[in-house]
């Protein structure tokens, strides 16, 4: 590798790591300000290592990690194809609806073995996710409507369609909120460690990341998506089908978001009860940005975010600090990670220095 490239790589990494560290410090400072001099030690402790103090909390991290990895990988494809559709957010809510309705309105799945049911559920969620992702994609590619705007608006539509579909059909009237009946045991991911939130869905996520990496790095489609995203004109010149590729990027994003939704809804919950947006899709965007749109880094960045999110929840229960604090933390991370100019001067100076050294070496 060339020296300049190494420096660039180093600074990209440094930016992500420093971004996270700075975000942490900012949050700690705010925690201290909020809690006063009394309880700050407790708060900091809860925030820093709260998620790892009990198996139940750690299970919570694992439970978040699974959909994060999947949705993050999906966002890598969307993002790498040069599009910024955030429809993943709405897909989390809407993707399980058809299969949930099917599950409780017919008896087809009742007698089937669990493994078959899970495959059916996953396929149905991915299919719905894929179809929904095509709406903003079609708007963008055929009608020229900005996919970011349409997808943000559609997200809310998706959430309400989900709620109303359940309310008007299979809602469990015994509950005070809108929810489907409880999933039968052969139609969900089983929990681990004595009914904690960690569930079998994590394996789906692991396989999902591997598949994403293979598609991204080792298939014709993956290379075409990356070329198109990097330079659409060049993709056209190379004979790549430029009408299909942006659709494919967004479709893959939708499929992975659908799978993420499946893992979340049929793993972390006992019934379909999403009544508003979950923020998982938006977190997926952040995960992909932190991973520099490389699926190979997604497990790492997804874990960091899952951990931070769980910290916030722990903090919320143990102290008087609101869970919304984490939203701010996220903002700080995005700010530093996405800001190309952050550390830019130092990077420039370093490159200038090594260039000079090389010149001197060549001169000798």
């Amino acid at each position, binding site marked *: 590798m060339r020296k300049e490239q190494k420096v660039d790589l180093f600074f990209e990494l440094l930016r992500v790591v420093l971004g996270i560290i700075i975000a942490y410090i900012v949050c700690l400072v705010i925690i201290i300000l909020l809690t006063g001099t009394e309880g700050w030690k407790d708060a900091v402790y809860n925030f820093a290592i709260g998620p790892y103090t009990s198996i139940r909390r750690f299970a919570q991290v694992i439970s978040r990690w699974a959909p994060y990895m999947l949705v993050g990988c999906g966002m890598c494809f969307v993002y790498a194809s040069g599009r910024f559709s955030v429809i993943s957010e709405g897909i989390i809510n809407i993707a399980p609806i058809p299969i949930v309705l099917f599950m409780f309105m017919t008896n087809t799945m009742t007698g089937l073995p669990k493994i078959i049911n899970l495959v059916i559920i996953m396929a149905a969620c991915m299919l719905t996710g894929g179809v929904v992702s095509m709406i903003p994609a079609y708007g963008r590619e055929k009608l020229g409507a900005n996919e970011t705007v349409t997808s943000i608006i559609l997200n809310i539509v998706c959430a309400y369609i989900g709620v109303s579909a359940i309310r008007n059909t299979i809602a469990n009237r015994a509950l005070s909120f809108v929810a489907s009946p409880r999933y039968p045991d052969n139609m969900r991911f089983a929990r681990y460690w004595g009914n904690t939130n960690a569930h079998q869905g994590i394996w789906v996520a692991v396989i999902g990341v591997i598949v994403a990496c293979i598609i991204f790095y080792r298939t014709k489609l993956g290379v075409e998506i990356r070329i198109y995203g990097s330079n659409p004109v*060049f993709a056209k010149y190379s004979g790549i089908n430029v009408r299909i590729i942006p659709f494919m990027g967004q479709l893959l994003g939708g499929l992975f978001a659908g799978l993420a939704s499946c893992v979340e809804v049929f793993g972390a919950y006992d019934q379909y009860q999403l009544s508003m947006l979950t923020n998982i899709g938006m977190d997926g965007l952040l995960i992909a940005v932190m991973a520099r749109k490389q699926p190979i880094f997604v497990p790492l960045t997804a874990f960091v975010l899952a951990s931070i999110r769980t910290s916030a929840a722990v903090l919320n229960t143990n102290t008087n600090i609101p869970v919304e604090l984490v939203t701010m933390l996220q903002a700080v991370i995005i700010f530093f990670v996405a800001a190309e100019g952050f550390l830019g001067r130092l990077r420039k100076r370093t490159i200038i220095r090594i260039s000079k050294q090389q010149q001197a070496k060549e001169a000798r």
Partner: protein
Amino acid sequence: MAKELLRMEGITKIYPNGFMANKNITFSVMENEIHALIGENGAGKTTLMKILFGIEECTEGKIYINGEETHISNPLDAIAKGVGMVHQHFMLVPNLTVAENIVLGMEPGPGPVFDKKKAIAMTREVMEKYQLEVDPTMLVRDISVGQKQKVELLKALIRGVKVLILDEPTAVLTPQETRELFVQLKNLKSQGYGIIFISHKLNEVMELCDRCTVLRHGRVSGRGNISELDPAKLSKMMVEREVDLNIEKDKAKAQDVILHIEKINYIDNYGKRVLKDLTFGVRAGEVVGIAGVEGNGQNEMSEIISGILKCTSGKIVFNGVEIQDKSIKEIRHLGLSHISEDRIKYGIANTLSVRDNIASIYLSSGEFNKGPFLNVRKLNKFVDDCIKEFEIACSGGQDKIRYLSGGNIQKVIVARELSGKSNFVIANQPTRGIDVGTTDLIRRLLVKTTRESNRGVLLISSDLTELLEVSDRLLVMKDGEIVAQFTDLEGVTEEELGEYMLGVKRMSQEEMGDLF
């Protein structure tokens, strides 16, 4: 002694990708002087001028104007301090009139209202003062290249600049237009202006300039008064080793017609007819050169052949198939390779690796597929072979292409286009802005591929030397038509080509003979 208008001292520029374009350059311009800044492509001339004009910031060094140290932060600042620039590619608005372009940014009139009459009057006034005549009411897109250059000059002059930078002004001009420009520049010189003339054409420098500074690999390699120098001395300063650019080639054995273009027409978005019944052909085993002043339909033609653009009417037969309605992919599968004139826009995906960039045109053919996956081993070997064979300076296929120099990027493109199974190559300006060594390599490869692999090559270039060196047959294009054909290039001079390029002369159908 003449007054020093401008002085740049110890200028060093390092680009963010680590490329050192200027190394400790010192340079000055006097009043009443035309100062040549010469050097090969890529020697750092344009970078130095971009620093002077405030487009780029220098890493080290000082700039003095009229003896005072200044810092030029942007082009507006540069103009305010009396430095104007005429770019290689004109910075004009094609949909506005000449007068509107000239007063752009300093529009006359009360408040927000634009006083057109006053604008025209102002334009006329400067035109008279400097004897540069262009009709101020014409739309810029309708005037000739030479006139556009005058508009660029006027744009700078009306803003009261004292130092004019001309970045390769003659590259797009015919020899006749060049001569006219020289008269105008000498006139400006006598009025007290300092002119920086960037070029790599020695004869022009000898004819026009008073002093010169020669750059080589970003350093000053020589300077002096033109009266004490001769072309031989200058070229020695410019080129570090004796490059034998004479390409030895045996006579072409032209075979079957690969490409046959029949009466294609193209009308652009402005309704201008860019190609007019263009008809010619290329055979296997020969290099056909296309000469012509830039903007006479060459780019449109190459984009239409490669399928990027669709022609308005006409027929193109390529390897026996009519391709005018085919997609880029289908045309590539039929055996076309295309080296585009704009290598950053069309030729590469900047953020990806050398490997991905080489793979791009082979993806759709499935050559490197293994079932649904890529045959990574085969692809890596192919890429490594390309790197070795075409002497691409990188440490491996995984290097990001944007860290490579321009010459090496072009080598990647040439390697990609020539390593496949195609039997026809369009090479549009394949050596523009490339260092001498790579230029030589690419020219040789183009000849070699016709002789050894029996390919047909269509070479479009604005470098007449290149065309005369490489081509077996040379066509001259003017206003979207072929106006001359030379089947024997022995004794054809650049002057002669220039007359056809400008339209002073034109061969009749009989003189040209069959165009394939």
